[in-house]
């Protein structure tokens, strides 16, 4: 079995699977169960400043988006930070960390955007023996209305300022958790780095309304006929999270900044993808909330099995390996010409490729009276829609035309030389080849 041990900012954990700061990490009871189930670490549910704790709504806090067979694809929540007294949380954190010294224990914090507030809480957290802190600059509902959470995360200057305070008053690793509810994720990430952050974690949840009740005309989840946007998470947000992670990983300003990946991690494969894009650990919430803590077992077995298959001995062997392959559109090779190919033996003749291509794309698939579907190479632009809508895996594939072949659509001979938009004759900004 491959070694899943992870060293993230000097924080060791037996595997890269951490539970994200969220309801599953709100109490000693849950976190002990999580550690017993095998999670590598937890980010304790966000602590607020000393004093009367926040209160939550007393109606539904979650809304859902379902796929086939009521499979949970997306979850949204309007829960706030911990609603238990600070002292209770701190005592529990200290106790659990003492009992599980090999697991990562990170404490999420969100206090008002004032230096005094941070200066007050940080020593208290340090006393627990926790391995580091995560600054919650992401929570998009409730707390943001009070100038915290994503209200801070949306202003890079505040991120930098608060991060600097934390680095001043706390001597262990500081992770800044970013909100995706911004235009360009690179700006807050750079601000965190400039403030001295040891790492960023992302994404926090996305502003969302999961549904509208068509009888009461109220958004869901509904509290007494009204609704408020919540934070969206679960498998549905993974593509957004992967993209944001990749932007930070490849931007020269933030390249090399450690990342803890969050957003729809449900299986080992999701985790491996985040890690390939540069994440040293991943954080999970919705999968645990949907299936219970035992899901980590599949993640651990799956990841180590895949690593064995690929010959990776440590997770560091593959972390970041996909980053160099994320590029700008303008650098994509325009001489890479493919055509769709339909495996007639695998085809079940549903005709979805035909409908998709004929109605919504390039009229590049022919349908015979016997329901035999074939690609018209002179029309096929290789868009991949047929591949995506085909219900049979590997029935339709994209095959590259070899060098020297003529693309019947363009009449041009395929070259094996790399050529992109920056040098294309149609580009008014094209630079002449030297």
């Amino acid at each position, binding site marked *: 079995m491959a070694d899943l041990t992870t060293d993230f900012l000097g924080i060791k954990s037996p595997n890269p699977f951490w539970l994200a700061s969220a309801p599953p990490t709100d109490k000693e009871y849950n976190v002990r169960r999580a550690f017993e189930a095998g999670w590598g670490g937890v980010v304790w549910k966000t602590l607020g400043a000393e004093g009367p704790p926040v209160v939550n709504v007393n109606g539904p806090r979650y809304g859902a988006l379902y796929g*086939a*067979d*009521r499979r949970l694809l997306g979850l949204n929540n309007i829960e706030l930070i911990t609603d238990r007294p600070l002292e209770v949380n701190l005592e529990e954190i200290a106790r659990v960390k003492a009992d599980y010294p090999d697991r990562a224990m990170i404490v999420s914090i969100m206090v008002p955007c004032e230096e005094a507030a941070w200066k007050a809480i940080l020593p208290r957290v340090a006393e627990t023996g926790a391995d580091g802190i995560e600054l919650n600059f992401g929570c998009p509902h409730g707390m943001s209305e009070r100038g915290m959470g994503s209200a801070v995360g949306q202003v890079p200057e505040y991120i930098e300022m608060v991060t600097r305070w934390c680095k001043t008053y706390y001597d262990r690793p500081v992770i800044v958790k970013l909100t995706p509810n911004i235009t360009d994720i690179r700006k807050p990430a750079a601000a965190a780095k400039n403030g001295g952050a040891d790492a960023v974690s992302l994404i926090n949840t996305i502003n969302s309304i999961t549904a509208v009740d068509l009888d009461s005309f109220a958004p869901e989840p509904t509290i007494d006929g009204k609704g408020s946007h919540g934070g969206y998470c679960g498998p549905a947000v993974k593509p957004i999270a992967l993209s944001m992670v990749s932007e930070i990983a490849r931007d020269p300003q933030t390249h090399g900044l450690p990342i803890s990946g969050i957003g729809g991690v449900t299986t080992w494969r999701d985790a491996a993808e985040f890690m390939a894009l540069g994440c040293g650990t991943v954080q999970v919430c919705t999968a645990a909330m949907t299936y219970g803590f035992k899901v980590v077992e599949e993640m651990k077995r799956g990841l180590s099995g895949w690593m064995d298959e690929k010959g990776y001995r440590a997770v560091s062997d593959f972390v970041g390996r996909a980053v160099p392959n994320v590029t700008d559109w303008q650098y994509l090779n325009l001489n890479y010409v493919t055509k769709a190919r339909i495996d007639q033996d695998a085809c*079940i*003749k*549903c*005709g*979805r490729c*035909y*409908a998709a291509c004929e109605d919504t794309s390039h009229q590049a698939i022919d*349908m015979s009276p016997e*329901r035999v579907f074939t690609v018209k190479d002179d029309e096929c632009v290789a868009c991949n829609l047929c591949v995506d809508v085909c*219900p*049979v895996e590997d029935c339709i594939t994209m095959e590259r035309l070899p060098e020297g072949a003529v693309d019947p659509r363009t009449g041009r001979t395929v070259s094996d030389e790399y050529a992109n938009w920056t040098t294309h004759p149609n580009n008014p900004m094209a630079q002449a080849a030297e």
Partner: protein
Amino acid sequence: MTSPLTPGIAAGRLPAEEIARNFADLHPAYDDHEAQVAADRCYFCHDAPCITACPTDIDIPLFIRQIQTGMPEAAARTILEQNILGGMCARVCPTETLCEEACVRELAEGKPVEIGRLQRHATDSLMARQGHPFTRAPETGKRVAVVGAGPAGLACAHRLAMKGHAVDLYDARDKPGGLNEYGIAAYKTPQDFAAREVEWLMGIGGITWKGGQSLGRELALETLRAEYDAVFLGVGLGGVNDLGVEGAERDGVTDAVGFIADLRQADDLSALPVGRNVVVIGGGMTAVDVAVQSRLLGAENVTIAYRRGRDRMGASRFEQDLATSKGVRIIDNVMPVAVHGNGAAVEIELEYTAERDGRLEGTGERLRLPADQVFRAIGQSLVPVEGPEMDGRKIAVTGPGRTSLDGVWAGGDCTAGEDLTVVAVAEGRDAAEDIHARLTA
């Protein structure tokens, strides 16, 4: 106290509760979540093969998608626009040889989308929660006689009534429904569904039920032609083919269709007599229906004897498997030679057969089976109708059911084509459209 071992033909071979259990729904209804899951399996194929395979051209992917989006009643409308007996067809169609055989998931995995059960979910939802889903057009003043209240006649009558014509619906029996009411196996249409469906169908208005009147006795085709603007014949197959062997007249030798009709109309199935040793001659749906129901009533031994190979049986593979799963033995390549007994049947003598140059011949080898009840299920035939030209043993039609007589249409089992409920519905519907076009031209 009778039991499966009681000799001869006797009632109450099983406790009443056991018989009731035996005759429960063959394919129980989906609950809402099951229907959603089943609906999610549909790929919404382009120019879907299942539609092509459906004799009534129901837009199956569309209605399944409507179920999936939580609109089963709207799904039912999609079905009923094409097939007003969509509820019955969902129960009795041999979907394994129609839509579900054509389903691409049958090709892909050998597990088609369960179209029949989904159709039932939709139609049951509508029939449970709503009244009649269609409204009748204003009266046209035209009058049409529909003779035969089976699937063809009902479909024709409904479509004509919906178009605003006044329909008189005749049938030889006391109740409408035809084979839906008298012929189909009880476990396919429990809880009096056939009668409830007819009552619901009549909700369109404009249809007058005239039972107990049969063509050639109370009714004359020439009179009908004179009194009505159009006539539709959906008279079905009233005759039963004979066995034509020595001893065929013995007590206990009876026709399967009549037995099933008695069973369907029985208030108390434990009062219905059935043999200890039952032999069914035939290989179609009726043979399976009577064999299975005999077992469910408590017959000890039930055998289907079919003269050709199993691949030639009219009953689908699914039906054959259903029969064997209920403990029915199927012997193929045998034909009856004689029924032996002293007054009542005691034993049947069969001869093995082989096909030579396309002709079926006895091999000379024989076997005898105990048989106190022998069912003839070797096909029904049309009771000849005076007037229209015949095509072999059926009424000749062209296009949408036009007979050789002006103003007379025909459809269902009395015309050529597969003798299926769903085919009859399509023929009745299409004839109605043609009649409507003629009457409003």
